[in-house]
């Protein structure tokens, strides 16, 4: 009976196990790759883990990488739950970072007001920018995957223009001037990138969970995400809810940019984002579009970014490997249904007929 119980448990949480399995498979694949090029994967992964979690310093740096990824992933999740596939997080995040940098630099205020105002500016910039594809989708039936992807470019070049031509340049790096002390997050661990923005991140996760699970509004957004026709039939204003999902998604994306700006760079640095907006989609997917799941997957991807540094320093493996790992994880997550099918078959004891019945 104990086996039966375990089996039930595994089947019930098959989505979670599939996600974990996909990540493990990706790492195994990288291991094989390292082995085949004459390197020692055990050694490499050892350095990797040490680099990501080995001491306070590394751990703090890892968490600081988690911050923008996690906020942006939550942005994607809130959109996806409300039937919006927001691939424009990168652009919204960049605009959010710029808007907050301008407010953080141009105004003098006491800290209790200045920092929140800085973050608010970023949040609104992202949200407002998202209203363009939102309107196009809801009222003009333009597919948001295309519109949001394309809108990432104007955002980037607009910022580029502002930094080079409008705000004063200090030095040779294209960037806005540094923000006021009153607009900065405090460092939590001196000498690392970890800053008090972690608290904002935690609040964002709680907010998303609360919104989606504990409010009538969240219920309606999820209903729209799963079945628009039924939602309409039951009196839910579908168009309004879709606009709102898109807006909140954009707001959180903008906030991710603002937090990164006010906690790490203290100015808008052209090309400061290594593609947080795009990575956030993978993070959200691996996290099964759940705010709680995203905490784990964001930690994994944050660790990838810091762990790989130690690995590159102590072994001869180039740090571009991180791109490869990322790519392979995405590949396996995309092939999730195959993995899930195999997983189910394995757990159930390989009866294809009963599987067919199950799938009906």
């Amino acid at each position: 009976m104990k086996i039966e119980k375990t089996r039930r448990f595994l089947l019930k949480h098959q989505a979670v196990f599939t996600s974990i399995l996909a990540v493990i498979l990706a790492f195994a694949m990288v291991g094989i790759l390292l082995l085949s090029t004459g390197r020692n994967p055990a050694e490499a992964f050892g350095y990797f883990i040490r680099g990501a979690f080995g001491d306070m310093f590394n751990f703090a740096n890892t968490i600081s990488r988690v911050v923008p990824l996690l906020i942006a992933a939550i942005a994607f999740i809130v959109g996806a739950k409300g039937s919006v596939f927001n691939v424009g997080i990168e652009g919204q995040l960049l605009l959010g970072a710029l808007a907050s940098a301008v407010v953080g630099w141009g105004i003098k205020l006491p800290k209790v007001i200045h920092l929140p105002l800085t973050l608010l500016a970023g949040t609104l910039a992202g949200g407002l920018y998202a209203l363009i594809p939102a309107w196009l989708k809801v009222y003009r039936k333009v597919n948001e995957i295309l519109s949001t992807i394309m809108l990432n470019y104007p955002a980037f070049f607009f910022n580029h223009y502002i930094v080079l031509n409008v705000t004063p340049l200090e030095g040779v790096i294209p960037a806005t001037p540094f923000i006021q002390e009153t607009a900065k997050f405090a460092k939590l661990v001196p000498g690392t990138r970890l800053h008090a923005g972690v608290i904002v991140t935690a609040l964002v996760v709680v907010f998303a969970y609360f919104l989606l699970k504990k409010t009538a509004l969240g219920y309606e957004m999820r209903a729209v995400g799963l079945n628009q026709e039924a939602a309409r039939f039951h009196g839910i204003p579908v168009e309004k809810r879709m606009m709102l999902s898109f807006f909140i998604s954009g707001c959180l994306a903008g906030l991710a940019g603002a937090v990164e700006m006010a906690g790490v760079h203290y100015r808008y640095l052209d090309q400061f984002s290594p593609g947080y907006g795009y990575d956030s989609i993978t993070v959200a997917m691996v996290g099964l579009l759940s705010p709680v799941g995203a905490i784990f997957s964001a930690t994994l991807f944050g660790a990838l970014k810091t762990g790989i540094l130690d690995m590159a320093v102590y072994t001869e493996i180039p740090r571009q490997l991180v791109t490869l790992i990322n790519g392979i994880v995405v590949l396996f997550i995309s092939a999730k249904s195959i993995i899930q099918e195999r997983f189910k078959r394995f757990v159930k004891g390989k009866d294809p007929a009963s599987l067919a019945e199950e799938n009906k």
Partner: protein
Amino acid sequence: MATIIEMRGINKRFGDVQANRDAAITVEAGTVHSIVGENGAGKTTLMNILYGLYQADSGEIFVNGKKVDIDDPSAAIANGIGMIHQHFKLIPAMTVAENVMLGNEPRKAGLFLDLAELNGLTKELSDQYGLAVDPEALVEDISVGIRQRVEILKALYRKVNILILDEPTALLTPQETEDLFRIINKLREDGKTILFISHKLKEIMKISDRVTVMRDGHVVDTVEKKDTSEVDLARMMVGRDVFLRNAPPTKKIGDVILKVENISAVSTVHKRPVLRNVSFDIRAGEILGIAGIDGNGQTELVRALIGLQKLTEGKIILHDEDITHLSVRDMRDAGIGVIPEDRLKEGLVIDFDVQENLCLGLQRNDEFAKNGLFDWKSVTSNAEKLVEKFDIRTPSIKLLARLLSGGNQQKVIVAREIFHAPDMIIAAQPTRGLDIAATDFVHEELIKQRDLGKAVLLLSLSLEEVMLLSTRIAVIYKGEIVAIVDKDKATAEDLGLLMLGGSYEHIQV
């Protein structure tokens, strides 16, 4: 007549469910043999075993008196057995002929597709059985009824002489069903054997030579059509007497609840009128049935009554209050409950769990939300109450609605709408696709609501259902109510004529 198929002692188990137990069936060549039973009775499993999709745990299959092993569908086809599933397996982007020949295409010089031959062969086969299919049409452009014929052609092209049809009429309109029966008769004349899976008794009585009834995985009996009746078959299927023929008469009729005055509407798609001057009223304690052929304005009428269809003129009055221009939410709050015609698309969010579905549309009511905060405790207690009261069979209220059987999905909708609707219930096709026991449940509930003094508007494509339940019957034709008659004064023939556009005066003569 010779026995063409015999299955003996078939057992099949899926996990905890014994889908077939000692099932046995004998089929004569050149007959239409129906296999009937409730959903889950094991009829499709038995046929899937014959077609090689499943392997029986034990049991034997004989084709033309010879014992055969059918390991997969290709073995079945080699034995002359073909099967057409409820959900077609066609490639939408290819033409009819390409689909028919798929995998066995005629070739030129062994390499190139012989298009002329391809289309010619398909045309020939189509004409032979009066299927009237255009070989060059793309499958994505043709109707469900025609797609089904393409499936039949596929089987015929593979020289099948035993054809299994799994609930072939489930997705068809009445007219398409007629056409299908014509084709089946033609196939029978040609010496083919048809195995017809269904739970629609009327159709079975119409098309079969013999009927095998299944229940709980075993075969209850096999009878000659001429020796049985719908009522007998229903009793064998369900294992007890059913409502089917006699609903208790209307008791006490009260005040007018809903009054519809001269409403008209045009379609948003092709701007044609879909409702023309529709007027009627419904009183407390009565069921007004709307009879009509599909596509005569029933869908639009329901949408109008819940605020989804814009009206060009007219008024809707509920309890002396004009609700014509209210939003969907406000209309439902005003006291209208609706069982929509499309259970999966409109009635449920199938990826919500049972408890979330049981408060769909009510999420803003005080019971479930306080200051915008969702009250999961009430959601759960509401679900527990309704599951118990309406006997919804689910292992947990946290199961996704997708995983419920069709009958139980409908119970979720009926429970929610009836329990929370104050006085007016609209039931659109409330029993479409349900088996007998579930249909019986819905009918009983509607009658119960009527006797509680609620007003019920019933729209159904089944004239039989309308006549069974209604106090009065309105006939809708091309968006117009052409007659409203008392149930006692209506005959099926008169109503049928009206539904087809005949005039009432003409009938009176």
